[in-house]
Each structure stands twice: as structure tokens, then as C-alpha cells.
């Protein structure tokens, strides 16, 4: 009972929903019954699911309290590497919530869906313009879904040449989802080591590429935050053996208006609208992962495809070579509305400045912290920089300790232990929407933590100290899984 009465400031304890439930309560305004009950075979009827019964105010308090245990982007700096946690403009939520969009039926006749179809067509055009690609599909619901669509396009392309290639090259600096996406299309991943300076060498790619290899999946800038300087040459090698080049565009935020992947040899790529194009991540999703292709692959894109015909917008199924449908309808439309609104608000110069400032901020952090933390690749970075805990190890403090201590200072930790090629990696991506003041505070926090490690490393093992819960027993969670409450 005493545990139930404790609270630390305004961080309140809150039980699970069903622990609060009481028969007879309701939080719902039941719609009026204006028809009589009709017969239904008793054998089909169940007792109804065991959902909790709560009043409206109890539901509000429950989820408000839960929300207060969360750190969001609006709470503070969220430098999670490769996740591009930039500010999510609130005005774009308004646009997605407009009743004409929010209450639109996906199968309504096309002549009463013109606004939505026009938005799809124009967003595809904008994304093609930004990437230098020729055509796009907005159906994939997340980055990994876009990768899967891309791998299906690889597969369809090679099938159309009458061959079934079985392998795919994946560098050690690529995103973690890449091998799993390729495997779903039956490709065996062949790992490619990055060179000593953290980027791919054409020589090694040439050695591994052969006519049984479908192509390569490159993340550019890569997960070390480095630009793949040899990409053009690598693309020539891949194309020379009849393969295709896939670019994971999760890191597009570094190069808008600076590099157009479609012009440097990339054949297929995806974008993460919930990263580069500012849509909220929702604690796990929904995102959107459009797939884009060069002209010779447009015929393989998912269907249906939105098109402008004369003055009208239509959905076309007339694509016999298409890989088919990736989503029941047209993808996460509500997310697409937000990304479209973002692009219209930023304009060409705004997007280019976003990338410039993102790169400026990452390099500034790298420069300011490189004497404090080990920097495995000491060269100019793009939108993120990767440190490690090598200098702190002798004091028995690890990357995990540093991350947890940052929480006590009011920051979301960076991505940790990724990429795998850097032992104890600390991957920092500030994005362009952090002010210099906040970035300086983050740098100060990182420096303070390094000093604490020298003075009193045990203190770090106790971090975080001021959160709703302290460090959690993840081994226990996995060994005796409890995935549902009772």
C-alpha cells in the first residue's frame, strides 16, 4: 500500500489499466439505439472481450501520467544517431487532421478523391526532385518496408533479364535492416568490409562483385556519418557486372540540395519521411518509407500508381511488370500529408539549409568532444559523428554508463553500440533544429560525465537516478517473457 502512495514530485505511480477497472464504469458516450435488436445465432456469440471498465477522467489521468514518464523530442535534445530526431512542426498535424483527409475513404471513387490524389502525385514529384530519381511509390509504410520494396524491384529486374541472382553485397557500415530485407527476397548477404578510413574501397567491391550478385545496398552517408566518396566508381563496377545499386536513404538529411543520389549511379533508394521530412515518430511509428527508382526501373514500382491525366488525378493499375501492391491501400497517407506540408514550408533553400546546419552541428560536436572521447575516424563527418568509450574503459565506465548518465542531465542518449564495427560506439546526430545553446549544453554534459568517470566511476553505474524506474533487468525479461498482463 505504501508504494501506491508514493510519488516523486509530479511523476506519479500508475497501475495497469485492468488494475483500476471496476464493473459499471464507462468512459464512452454510447451512440443512440434507434433500431430494434435482431436475432443472431447464439452459438456465434461470445461473452465479449475482457476489457477494463473506466470512466473518462480515469482514462485521461492514466495516459497523461504514462506520457509524463516519456522523454519526447519536445522535452529536449534527442541526438539519436541515424534516427534524425528533428523538430516535428505542429502545423503539419493540423493538415493531416483536416476532416477532408482524416475521414476520407480509400476506395471512394477517384473523382471525389482529387485532393488526396493530387497530394500523392506532387509529393512523388518533390521527392524525385530532391533525390534526382525518376519515379517513386509512396506505399511503403516504413524504411524497412521501402527496403523490401527495393529488393523486390532488384528481384523483378533480374527476373526480367531471365536470371535469378542469389547474392547481394552489404557493407559493414549499412543499416541493420538491410540484410533482413534482402533475405526476404531470397538474397544471401555478402558482407563488405569498409576501408581503414571508414569508407568503401572500389577494389574490394570489384573483387566481390560477380554475375551471380544482384547488386549492392549502400547507406550514404554511412552509419559512421561518413560520405562514401567512391560511390560513383563503385556504381560503375556494379553496373559493369549487370548489377544494381541500392541506397538506404535514412541519412538523406545530410545531403539535401548537395547530392542527388539519382545522378551518381544509384538505381533504387528509399527515404524515411519520419526522419528527413520531419514527421513525428510516435514512439515507434507510423513512419513512411517511399521507394524511388531511376527511369529504367519505373515499370517495376508498386501499384496502383497515382498519376495526372489531363486535369484529373487517377490511380493506375496499368503496370504489368509491377512487383504488385505493398500495402492494403496507398501507404501511411496521414504521414505523407505531413511530409508534403514540410516540403512546402521549407522550399528549396530551406531544405538545403537544413542539411547544411545538420552537418555543421555534427562537426561542431565532433570537434568539441574529440579530446574527451575517442574518435575512431578522425575526419570531417556529415550529419552524425561516432565516438567510443575506449578512453573511459580503464576507469571501468562504459558507453552504457555514459548514455544513462546523460539522462540525469536531461538529454536523450545517442544511439549506442551501433554501428557494430566500432566497439562501444556512441553515435551522435544533433540535427539542424537544435539551437547552439542546447548543443553547447550537451557538449558540457558529455565533458562533465568524462570528468566524473575520472573522479568517481561508480557514480555512473548508478545512473539514471531521477527517472520513473532505474536500470531494468532485460535478461529476466527475455528469459521468462511476460508479454501480457493478467
Amino acid at each position, binding site marked *: 500500500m505504501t508504494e501506491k502512495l508514493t510519488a516523486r514530485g509530479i511523476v506519479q505511480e500508475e497501475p495497469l489499466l485492468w488494475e483500476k477497472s471496476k464493473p459499471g464504469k464507462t*468512459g*464512452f458516450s454510447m451512440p443512440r439505439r434507434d*433500431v430494434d435488436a435482431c436475432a*443472431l445465432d447464439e452459438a456465434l*456469440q*461470445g*461473452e465479449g*472481450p475482457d476489457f*477494463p*471498465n*473506466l470512466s*473518462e477522467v480515469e*482514462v485521461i489521468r492514466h495516459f*497523461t501520467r*504514462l506520457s509524463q514518464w516519456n*522523454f519526447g523530442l519536445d522535452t529536449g535534445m534527442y541526438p539519436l544517431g541515424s534516427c534524425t530526431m528533428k523538430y516535428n512542426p505542429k502545423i503539419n498535424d493540423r493538415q493531416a487532421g483536416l476532416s477532408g483527409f482524416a475521414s*476520407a*475513404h480509400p476506395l471512394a471513387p477517384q473523382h471525389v478523391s482529387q*485532393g*488526396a490524389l493530387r497530394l500523392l502525385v506532387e509529393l512523388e514529384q*518533390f521527392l524525385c526532385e530532391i533525390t534526382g530519381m525518376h519515379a517513386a511509390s509512396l506505399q511503403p*509504410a516504413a*524504411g*524497412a518496408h521501402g*527496403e523490401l520494396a527495393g*529488393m523486390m524491384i532488384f528481384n523483378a529486374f533480374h527476373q526480367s533479364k531471365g536470371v535469378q541472382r542469389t547474392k547481394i553485397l552489404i557493407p559493414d557500415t549499412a543499416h541493420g535492416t538491410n540484410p533482413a530485407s*534482402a533475405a526476404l527476397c531470397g538474397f544471401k548477404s555478402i558482407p563488405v568490409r569498409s576501408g581503414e578510413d571508414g569508407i568503401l574501397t572500389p577494389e574490394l567491391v570489384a573483387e566481390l562483385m560477380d554475375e551471380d550478385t544482384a547488386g549492392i545496398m549502400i547507406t550514404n552517408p554511412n552509419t559512421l556519418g561518413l560520405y562514401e566518396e567512391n560511390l*560513383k566508381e563503385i556504381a560503375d563496377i556494379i553496373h559493369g557486372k549487370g548489377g544494381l545499386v541500392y541506397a538506404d536513404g535514412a541519412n538523406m538529411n545530410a*545531403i539535401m*540540395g*548537395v*547530392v542527388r543520389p539519382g*545522378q551518381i549511379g544509384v538505381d533504387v533508394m528509399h527515404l524515411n519521411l519520419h526522419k528527413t521530412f520531419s514527421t513525428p*515518430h*510516435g*514512439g*515507434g511509428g*507510423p513512419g513512411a518509407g517511399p521507394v524511388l527508382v531511376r527511369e529504367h526501373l519505373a515499370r517495376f514500382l*508498386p501499384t496502383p500508381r497515382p498519376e495526372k491525366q489531363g486535369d484529373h488525378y487517377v490511380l493506375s493499375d496499368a503496370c504489368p511488370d509491377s512487383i*504488385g*501492391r505493398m*500495402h*492494403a491501400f496507398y501507404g501511411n497517407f*496521414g504521414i505523407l500529408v505531413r511530409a508534403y506540408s514540410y516540403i512546402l*514550408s*521549407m*522550399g528549396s*533553400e530551406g531544405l538545403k539549409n537544413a542539411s547544411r546546419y545538420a552537418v*555543421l552541428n555534427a562537426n*561542431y560536436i565532433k570537434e568539441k568532444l574529440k579530446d574527451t572521447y575517442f574518435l575512431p575516424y578522425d575526419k570531417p563527418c556529415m550529419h552524425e559523428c561516432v565516438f567510443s568509450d575506449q578512453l573511459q574503459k580503464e576507469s571501468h565506465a562504459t558507453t552504457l554508463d555514459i548514455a544513462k548518465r546523460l539522462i540525469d542531465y536531461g538529454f*536523450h542518449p545517442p544511439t549506442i553500440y551501433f554501428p557494430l564495427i566500432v566497439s562501444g560506439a556512441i553515435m551522435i546526430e544533433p540535427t*539542424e*533544429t537544435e*539551437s*547552439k545553446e542546447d548543443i553547447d549544453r550537451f557538449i558540457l554534459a558529455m565533458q562533465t560525465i568524462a570528468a566524473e568517470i575520472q573522479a568517481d566511476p561508480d557514480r555512473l553505474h548508478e545512473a539514471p537516478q531521477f*527517472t*520513473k*524506474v*532505474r536500470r531494468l533487468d532485460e535478461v529476466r525479461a527475455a528469459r521468462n517473457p511476460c508479454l501480457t*498482463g493478467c
Partner: protein
Amino acid sequence: MRYLPHTEDEVKEMLSTLGKDSLDALFSMVPENSRFKGELQIPQPLTEWELNRHMDGLAATMDSADRGRIFMGAGSYHHFIPEIVRYLISRSEFATAYTPYQPEISQGTLQGIFEYQTLVARLLGLDVANASLYDGATALAEALLMSIRITKRTKVAVSRGIHPLYRQVVATYFKPTGYEVIEIPCTASGRSDLSTLPPLSELAAVAVQSPNFFGVIEDLQGVREATKDEKTLFVCCFTEPLAYGLLKSPGHYGADIACGEGQSFGIPQSFGGPGLGMFACREKYMRNMPGRLVGQTVDVEGKRGFVLTLSTREQHIRREKATSNICSNQGLCAMASVIYMSTVGGSGIRELARLNYDKSEYLKGRLRQKGYRIVFDSPTFNEFVVDFTTGFDDRYQALMEKGIMAGLPLAGYYPELAGCYLLCVTETMEKADMDNLIREIG
């Protein structure tokens, strides 16, 4: 630009820290021949107020359920959404957080998703549910791939009563794999015809949807019996989870996996997305499940807490051997649906489902009285197929002009059902709306 906080002086100061004289100099590692020299052809930036006007204009062209009477469901349903759902998921702590990789500062998302998993498992009558997949169609595709992994067989049987667009997505997922989909036809009463099943020993799964695309409640007991005593998995798909407020759950009938679309539970239709791929299975298949899972544990002080767990199934650890490539899911939609489920509550969900059933039966009855043929005589939930006969197109268009969408024409999906329409009635439709439809169809 209001989203970019740096002043000119700050930019200069930061550049000088780096020993650079311009922003462009930051990109020195990009080879000259890879640089884009032009300007992106994107319209001049709009002010907040211009953007509002532009978007209002686009939205105004849409015939939405707020403006007309839309008797169309087919996998996207207009239900009332309590205002508190939108209000709560708009809280930035939920909306602007990433996937909960740091559990100490993500307990809100984690407990909420744990509660979601629990209520979904209860709804579907199964042991465990995941933290969501993209939508109902991809959830079905993932379920079938999972059954292939478990049984090591390469064929699945899929009912023709499953949403045609879901079956298209399954075909897309299967095409590069070489796995085979065998279609189960439907009987004259609109249920899956299990007498046509190939030998079970060949099949990884038998998949049906209930209520199916025609609104028909399938004979799930029959499916269980037809798949009994074999390794073959029984997959039950759905597009309308509200049906299980009234009907027995898939788990009651012994389904191994239940998967489908959760949009009906507090999520706007939004032209088809974002929706919510719900996915649940029996405990023995837990480790073969795709998607993220939240589990309960304790912290160093022994306090209850929640973490992402069983991640050894996932791509960032297992890479190409992962159970799926899914990373981002539909987290905020899952949160919306758990708020919806707890708001409507156990007694409310049954009453609401019953109201949906009774209203659609009312319209069905009125149409019958009027002499229209209800195509399938099996019991239905929310939706049913009516034969308006070929030549109804003009009338359908005329009704559109009056703000009435008289269902979904089925000819494009099922050529044998030319002239037939799939009609949907939920709690949002008043008796007067249905009486009006009856008058107007003449």
C-alpha cells in the same frame, strides 16, 4: 526559417571552430563530380497561413464521411472516435518519442504498448500479441511467412473471402520467394469452401477472414476441424475487430494466429493509412513472431517496469536470420487503439458491437422488403452484399451527387458479382440515413 534556430553570428562562430570559411566548405569530402550545382525545383516556401489555405483547398475536394453518408467499409470503417483519443495521442511525449530504446525514459510508451498487447490478446482470444505491424494486409503476409518458417512447408491455402487487396499484398510478398498460394473458393452462401482443400500435409497454413470481405461470419469451428491433428496452422484474418466484441474470438475456435486491421479502434480512416496491423498467436509460436514485443520486468530497486524484449528475433541482432525485417511499426496507432479499447470498455464494446449488428440488419431487412436480393444467406456483421443488378451505375452516380455513397461496387474485384455492392453500416449511421437511402435508390 522558424524551424532553424541558428543566427548568422552563431553559424560564423561554429564554422570558425571548425576552421571553415563557409557552409559549403563542410562538404569538401563530396567529390566535385558528385555535387548538385543547380537549385531544387520546389515551390517558394509557404507561410504557415498560406500552407493552411492550400491544404484547406485540397481537403475541400474530398467527399469524406463527415460530409456525406458513406455506406462503404471494405477494410476501412467510419466509427465514432472519442475526443480523448486524439487528445491523448497528441501529447508530445507520446507523439515525438522514438522507438523506446532507453526504457528508463520511455515507460509511458512501454507500459501503453504492454497494455495494448494484453487487450489485443484478450480480444482475439490468444496468448500473446506483438506491438503492431504496418496494416492488416502486411500482417496477413507476415502470418503466412511465419507459418512457413514454423512448418518448413512451402504452400499456404488462402480463402477467396479474404479482402482482395490483402491477397494482392500476399502475392507481392510471395513472388520473390517461390512459395505457393492456393486459393480456396467460396460457397453460394459466402463462406470458404473447405471441401476443396488440398492434402493438409502439404500446407503450412489455412487462412480465412472472419467476418470475411462480404461481411459473412465464417464457420471457424469448421476451419478448425478441417485443420485438426495436423501441423498446418490455422490463420484467422480480420478487417473489422469490433466484430469480436459480439462474436466468439478466433482463439476460442483454436486459431494459431489471428491478424488483421485495427483501424476501427480509434484511428481515422485517413484515405487508408496509417492504420494498425494487429497480430496475435499462441504462446508456443511466440519466438517465431515478427515485430517488436514489450515485456514486463523489474528495475534494480525491484520496481515493476517494461522493456523491449526477445530482440534476438530481430534484424539488428539476427540480421538476415531475423523473423522479419520490421523496425518502425505503427506505435502511435497502437496507443490510440489501447486508449479506445479502455474508453469503450468491456461492457461498452459488446453493446457497441451489438448496435452495429442491429443497424446493419435493419438496412438489410429494408432492402429485402424492397425486393433486393441479399446475395449470401449466412449471418453477417456490419457489412453485406446486395444485388442492385447491373445497370445500377447511373443511379449510383446520381446518389453520389446527393452525398450518398451506396456501397462498394464488386464487379472489379469479383467479376461474378457484377451488379452487386458491398454495403456497410456502423453506429455512425442513423436510422433516418438508412430510410433515406431506401427512398433514394428507388
